[in-house]
């Protein structure tokens, strides 16, 4: 028990240091960091403009009103922002394998998956999380849900968002693990983004039965933003809640196994 506590403490310390290092790296080019923050903010604004243009023509999107849809959008932004702010190094796995710099991670006396996950966090993406929270608050206020109900559902929402974070992390890790087989696989980032960005709209837009099954199980997009938003707005749904928990566990376990399997195929590119 004591050993686990020491290990955990070490993990937290390394994570804190890696976040600090990431911030220092960005601060080396302060003006660039400022521009990165502006860029992230701009990206959020453009997404909101897009949503507004759509709702300029319609009253609801597959049953979701503008404010309800905004909660889905904000939930997705929070998850995306947290992923970049904490696990940005995952996006660089391909490049590091190609350049041989992955060795620097693998030779360290710590779990390689943990280090690969937390080695870099993009501090500008906290702007994404903050903007998303503002959108979230704006949408909640305009939904006219009693505060007591919001606070009660918020607890379920936070648990579901944690599950969503684990699911997105696992999908990203599985996809990036393919980099061990392909020399140049930077396009996996785009592929990963394309897949996860599908969840920024209510998944009810995928009207076909097959699409619904795929996006609830194989690629559980529905559980990234739509399900947390649904439960926040409409209250607890035990089936969706436990499905989300089960999927998070299954995906995390699978990603761990797949990462270890992929790691066996690593051949260093460095001298």
């Amino acid at each position, binding site marked *: 028990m004591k050993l686990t506590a020491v290990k955990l403490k070490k993990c937290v310390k390394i994570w804190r240091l890696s976040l600090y290092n990431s911030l220092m790296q960005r601060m080396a*080019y302060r*003006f*660039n*960091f*400022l*521009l*990165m923050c*502006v*860029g*992230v903010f*701009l*990206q959020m604004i*453009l997404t909101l*403009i*897009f949503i507004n*243009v*759509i709702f300029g*023509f*319609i009253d*609801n*999107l*597959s049953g979701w009103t503008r404010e309800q849809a905004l909660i889905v959008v904000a939930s997705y932004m929070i998850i995306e922002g947290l992923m970049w702010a904490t696990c940005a190094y995952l996006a660089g796995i391909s490049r590091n394998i190609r350049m041989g710099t992955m060795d620097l991670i693998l030779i360290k006396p710590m779990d390689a998956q943990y280090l690969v996950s937390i080695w870099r966090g993009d501090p500008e993406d906290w702007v994404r999380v903050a903007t998303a929270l503002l959108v979230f608050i704006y949408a909640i206020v305009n939904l006219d849900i009693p505060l007591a109900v919001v606070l009660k559902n918020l607890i379920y929402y936070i648990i579901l968002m944690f599950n969503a974070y684990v699911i997105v992390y696992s999908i990203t890790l599985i996809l990036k693990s393919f980099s061990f087989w*392909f*020399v*140049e*696989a*930077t*396009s*996996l980032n*785009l*592929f990963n*983004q*394309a*897949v996860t*960005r*599908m969840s920024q*709209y209510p998944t*009810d*837009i*995928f*009207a076909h039965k097959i*699409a619904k099954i795929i996006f609830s199980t194989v690629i559980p997009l529905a559980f990234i933003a739509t399900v947390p938003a649904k439960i926040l707005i409409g209250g607890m749904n035990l089936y969706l809640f436990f499905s989300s928990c089960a999927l998070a566990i299954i995906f995390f376990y699978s990603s761990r196994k797949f990462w270890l399997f992929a790691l066996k195929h690593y051949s260093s590119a460095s001298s």
Partner: protein
Amino acid sequence: MKKYWIIFKNSLQTSMAYRFNTFAFLIAELFSLAVIIYLWLSIYRQGNQIGNYTLSSLIIYYIFTKFISLLINAQDTARIIGDSIRQGDIINYLVKPINFQFESFFSNFGAVTYNFLAYSFIFLIILLFFHGISINILSAVLFILFILMAIVINFLINYIIGISTFYLGFIMGINFIMFNITLFLSGSLIPLDMLPSLVYKIVGFLPFKYLAFVPISVVTGKIGLDGLMPLLAHGLFWILALYLVALILYKKGLKNYEAYGG
């Protein structure tokens, strides 16, 4: 000219070496295309008419935006140029009898050509699947002409961002901002004529519309023959203006360049 032909060929061959990337890029774009189609299907199912667009014309619009995006964004030119300045690799070009701007352009054009060869057939099939448009020879020729204009304008914008490294030191931030601005103002996110009329007029003066909205409007017949000449002249004006800006920034930047690294 032979040396640039070799640069073009090298870039084409390099792109061919990473076939998995080609496949993954295509799948990624098809995924995001599917989302857009589902989104608009869901909107049109309610019996709405969005602007001047029918559902099928909107789907065709987005198919074209994906195709054009795959072509013109074949290479991250701004980042490549920025890295080469920041890390000092640009010195390798300065000591050779090669024009750096032309070298960058032909390298970019090689990657664009590869993407054209790799993706055009697939997108043609997708267009046919959605009962696409009837393209006659004239509109096809005009489309290619405006696509070439899009490639040049996109290159010049990215080149300017890239050589901003002389002044900013690191261009990741400005590159990210320009990526988002371009995405929106080119009409890749929303057709520009869906925007409020005042915004549409302002955006109409900028060069970004040539990166998606104009080529698509030409091939879908939204712009008649009488509207082509002013568009061509306007596009050529922007090419000239961007070229001059690039030239000035490059010359001034090079004067103060300390050539670290290399």
